[in-house]
């Protein structure tokens, strides 16, 4: 599908919705066009959000292939539900709600144990490669990898909801209200989740200071 800039829609229903969501974001506008049958707008949405969604899922499930598989499912569901899409909130809130739902389900179902390509294996491979390719920086690279492994393990050790909240807050820079909607809880619950999560991270990663 070619990436062509979205054209203004001639559909009166779409125009009406456009006016209604004038205060909302560009993504919502694009999604309304997708609902009206404009596949180019879907391509634009994919272009804008492919990276953030995959990266969020990657940090959530810590498996590159699974994160891409889940991200495919996210965009497939967005496309499948285009006809019933209602612009009641920011598009990113809806998008991350779908992504969070799929990721939490995946974590809950314990699919992690089912023979996956683990990040630890990747790290070992990565270090081996580095040892061969860049001898002078071996120590620095290995130290960095060890640190990253610790960060990943600290994130992985968080309960799934806390993990999702931290990832949306830290990396996707979503507002508390958006995270609350994505996790189907109140804003105060999100703040509480974030405090507990950062508290755990502070205690787990305290030795990395300096």
């Amino acid at each position, binding site marked *: *599908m070619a990436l062509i800039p979205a054209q203004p829609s001639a559909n009166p229903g779409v125009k009406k919705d456009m006016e209604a969501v004038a205060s909302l974001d560009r993504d919502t506008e694009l999604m309304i066009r997708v609902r009206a049958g404009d596949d180019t707008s879907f391509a634009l949405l*994919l272009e804008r959000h*492919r*990276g953030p969604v*995959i*990266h969020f899922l*990657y*940090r959530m499930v810590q498996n*590159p292939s699974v*994160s*891409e598989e889940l*991200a*495919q499912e996210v*965009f*497939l*569901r*967005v*496309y*499948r*539900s285009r006809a019933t899409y209602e612009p009641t909130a920011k598009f990113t809130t*809806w998008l991350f*709600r*779908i992504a969070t*739902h799929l990721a939490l389900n995946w974590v809950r179902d314990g699919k992690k144990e089912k023979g996956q390509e683990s990040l630890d294996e990747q790290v070992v491979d990565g270090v081996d490669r580095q040892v061969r390719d860049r001898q002078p920086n071996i120590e620095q690279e290995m130290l*960095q990898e060890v*640190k*990253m492994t*610790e*960060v*990943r393990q600290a*994130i992985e050790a968080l309960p799934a909801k806390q993990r999702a909240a*931290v990832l949306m*807050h*830290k*990396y996707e*820079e979503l507002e*508390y209200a958006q995270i609350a909607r994505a996790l*189907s809880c109140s804003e105060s619950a999100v*703040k509480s989740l*974030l*405090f507990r999560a*950062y508290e755990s*991270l*502070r205690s787990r*990663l*305290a030795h*990395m*200071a300096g």
Partner: protein
Amino acid sequence: MNCPTKRNEDAEILLDYCAQTLSPLQTAEFDVHLKQCADCSRLVEAQKEVWGALEAWAPAPVSVNFDVRLYARIAEEQAAPAWQLWLRRIFQPALPYPLWKSAVPLIAACALLAVGLTVRMPEATHAVQPQLRADKVDIEQVEQALEDFDILTPPAQAPAGSM
């Protein structure tokens, strides 16, 4: 300014300060507070270290054929029979239906059933009443028949010398 470590309601300011999402005015106010509060100062330092550690975690690059695979799945889905699409929409919705929304049809069905039963019940009681009446008549008939038998039966002879 209230100390965020003392009041939970103000604690989010610590996160927002480290995330640099506070307004310039709030940031300046909190900077002043940090100079006076050792607890907050320690917490901010620790939080900044965590923040820095998390920042260094770069995500894996996205596969070059991600879009191709996605569009292939969309095309495959569009080519599928309509009933399959409906099934997918029902069993794989974009978002799960809230529990109370799922319960609405069930509650509605139960209410409808209850109303239906209530409407039918009076007919049922009417149907029973004639039967009750019939039972009552039958008993009366039996009693009447017994009385008739009594009349027809000659009185027993009084034993001799009883008077």
